[in-house]
């Protein structure tokens, strides 16, 4: 199976006043296409920073990141945007829907950005039907509950058929039952579409449902294990 994400010797340092703060240090791992990987760790361990770097939202201080064979860590902002639009999808803890667009319009954005306006509407309708919001398409985010907003967000994440999907604490802002429903929906859609899913979470129950768990502490990988779901224990360092 092809490597979809390679992280090589990645470090990230922030300057705070006169102090240097190292958030990630010499991180290495590879993710193969089709898997579901959880990145876990306590608050401040560098999970979200790592996600931001892997998705090309930020630039590492040192090291390299590859999506397929494309080195994204050295691309400029617009080139990274093109890679994200082509291969990557996002699900956020706080949903990040655009408040001025309806549910349908929010889902259409990634496809329209690709220039696929013709299929944008029909595919977005399908996806909203799939996530159970067929009757809420013209509603604005402020008119939807948290769970509904996250379902719109999932529909949007899958709309451009991404090869790699990043989810940042996708159930973090939701209650138990709603969170469970969202998790199920996410895994079902992931399976249907054959997407590689990278989930950042500190919910160990959710992490246990993935194939592989990467544990971070103080900016370093302290363990990288396959789970029982995967059925083997090979480690890709």
């Amino acid at each position: 199976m092809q490597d979809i994400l390679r992280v090589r010797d990645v470090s990230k340092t922030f300057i705070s006043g006169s102090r240097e703060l190292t958030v990630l240090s010499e991180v290495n791992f590879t993710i193969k296409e089709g898997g579901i990987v959880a990145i876990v760790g306590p608050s401040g361990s560098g999970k979200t920073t790592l996600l931001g770097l892997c998705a090309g939202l930020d630039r590492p201080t040192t090291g390299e990141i590859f999506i397929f064979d494309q080195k994204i860590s050295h691309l400029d902002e617009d080139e990274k945007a093109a890679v994200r639009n082509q291969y990557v999808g996002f699900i956020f803890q706080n949903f990040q829907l655009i408040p001025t667009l309806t549910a349908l319009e929010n889902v259409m954005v990634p496809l329209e950005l690709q220039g696929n306006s013709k299929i944008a509407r029909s595919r977005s309708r399908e996806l909203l039907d799939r996530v159970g919001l067929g009757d809420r398409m013209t509603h604005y985010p402020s008119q939807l509950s948290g769970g509904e907003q996250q379902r719109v967000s999932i529909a949007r994440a899958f709309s451009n058929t991404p090869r790699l999907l990043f989810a940042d604490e996708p159930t973090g802002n939701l209650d138990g039952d709603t969170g469970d429903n969202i998790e199920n929906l996410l895994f079902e859609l992931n399976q249907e579409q054959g997407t590689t899913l990278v989930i950042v979470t500190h919910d160990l129950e959710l992490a246990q449902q993935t194939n592989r768990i990467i544990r971070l502490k103080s900016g370093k990988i302290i363990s990288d294990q396959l789970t029982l779901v995967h059925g083997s224990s090979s480690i890709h360092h």
Partner: protein
Amino acid sequence: MARPAFIIKTALRDSRKDIGKLVMFMASIVLGIAALVAINSFNYNLVSDIDKQAATLLGADIVISENKPIPEELLTIADSLPGEKASQMQLFSMSYLPSVDETQFVNIRALEGGFPFYGILKTDPPEASDLFRNSKSVLVDDGMMIQYELGVGDSIKLGQATFEIAGRLQSAFGSSAIGGTFAPAVYMSKDHLTSTELVQPGSLVDYQYFYKTPDSFDADEWKSRKRKKFRDESVRIETIEDRKENLEEAFSNLNSFLNIVALVSLLLGCIGVASSVLIYIKTKIPSIAVFRCLGMKANQSFAIYFFQIFILGAIGVLVGAGLGALIQVYLPILFKDFLPYEVHMAFSGKAFAEGIAVGLIITTLFALGPLLGVRDVSPLQTLRVSSEGNIRKWSPWKILVYAAIVISIFFFLMRLTGSWRDGAVMTGGLFIAFLVLVAVAKLITWSIRKFFPTGWSYVFRQGLSNLYRPNNQTQTLLLSIGLGTSVLTMLFIIQGLLLKNVASMEAGNQPNTILYGIERDQKDALADLTRKFDLPIIQQVPIVTMALAGWQGKSKKEWMADTSRTASRWAINREARVSFRDTLSPDETLLEGTFTGHVKPGDSVFISLADNWARAMDVGIGDELVWNVQGAMLTTYVGSIREISFNSMNTRFFVLFPNGVLENAPQFQVLVTKSPNIETTARYRRDVVKAFPNVSVIDLGSILSALNDILTKVSYVIKFMAGFSILTGLIVLIASLLLSKFQRVKESVLLRTIGANRRQIFMINATEYMILGALSAATGIVLSLVGSYFMATQQLELDFKIQWLPIVGVFLFVVGMTVIIGLLNSREVLNKSPLEVLRKEVG
């Protein structure tokens, strides 16, 4: 790749819900452009009407005039002009109205010939415009007839002669309604002027000769050939082209004032545009970050918001231009009393198009500054929220936009002032004001942090610390409120100076009644009459009219031909109205030489000159001056040079003779007195005119009250126009304070959540806004004082004396409005539950 259609579609979709946030943006543009278009339309109509009506305003192709009889030699040259000729003698005098037993100061115009050749004297009845030329009758200004309830057929006494009123003069030819307030016009035939006995040696009479030339004749070419000869004798030649230029020049002050108002409104509008777009973009940062996260390029996200702003800006510009075109219909009504002719309310396509062009350029440039920040919004914002969104303060694009703003302001100001130098100076001034405000903001944040009053109560410390903490609004608010206050205050100061300069003519304890045209044998009887009214004789002086015939050994003719001459033309040609006495008056100070009060027959005559006239003539102590005293030559020498204080209303003389020389020369007297009230003035004036019809009584009190009427009208016009700027300024203030709302609401809610009560939140916000308002207003006022000083002394040549009361008013107004609007912004926090507010603001 996303197509332009997607950009437009997204721009439209995104603007649906948030259009309300751009109300301030639209309002700023609409008001700024409305003022510009209204004022420019009015100016263009004014100039175009001057072009159209110049011929009827002059009434002839060529007018030759002088305030003394024009030499025969020059008249012969003028009379050789082809076409028709007419003439007029114009003088001011008292009139007596027997039917109502009243007197009125009038402007007598004694006509001969068919003047006006262009335009008509509009009279009621119409035939009166011919009747008065052939009979002993007059046309009287309609306003005066209404004031005294006079009718056609009533009598009016001018000097020694009584005339019948043939008709009402309905259009005061070639002068404004305001001009007629002082001395209404009375037209009569020149044939009957002699019978009034008003024209005496030394009388102030304007002699005018009108010529109507054939169409093929080039009046301007004739003038340029003859000008020198006429100018040597101070005789003016005016053609239709000159009248156009003169009128345009006369209105240039009005133009300048209106242009300043337009500029102020436009600049405030621009600040409003920049502030509102900045607020709008701040609210859009989370959406932009999501767009970027989903793969939108920086240019695409910029294009979405640029498109929104540009379309709304263009709509605002169009609405503003339309509103301006409507308002300009009202302007001529507002100004009608100040214009010597009717200005037509035509739609000016040029002003409309210019307004749209200037509006689009300025709006786009000022919006671009904050809009460029869209390019800097990082997709990382979706994961880690920072309110500024990592927007860079400087980028090459921003520098380019700011440079374009400076250049466009320079071109706009250059066009406004008509000089690249003035344009550059004003642009530089604005730029310096901007830098000063930024520097003051930095100084304030630095010094509050450095000298923080740790002993103060918590609420004051919290309010004060808001001025320097991260995401503070000190610089933004200081810039917008400070700049807004600065331009508004400057407008007030200049308006105050303009009004004060006119009002300074007010007499106070000065003499208020001047009698002139008194003949020598009337002198004592008039003094007795004055004393009978218990009025003081403040001054009673003789006046002898003479002309300079030569000086320093050369005749005037020789001097005029001499290219090395240093004396000024005005000083040489001035008809000297000279007095004689044996002492200097209290308002005169001797600067050089010795004052001679009396001369014995046969001795050399030493005269005293006013310092400014001596300078203009380039003569000094001991120099010889030869005078033509109504035919007799008189040689004198400069004995002394005096400085005359111009603070009193007394008569002043450039040339003062000693006693013993001019006593027997043809002369008239001037008497200066002070009347305690209007009733006494009216009775005194009536008795004087009845007993001495040739004497004119100038009542400065009534002139001042007429001036006051004008001032009231002028200040009404100024206030109306300044209203534009004030309204735009308020919008800027609201827009600027909305900026700070986004920062403060969350903080206040958090404080409420952890237990702060309403009063504490109120005090924290009030402290912050009061300090911000006070500092911004104070900085703006200091800048406006500097700016208006330069404008008043360099541009408008006014005395710079400040009236502090309006400035204190502006200060209190700005501080008050800042606190009120700031607190209104945070009223939600005070009145609603914290959760409700947070949901609304975040959602």
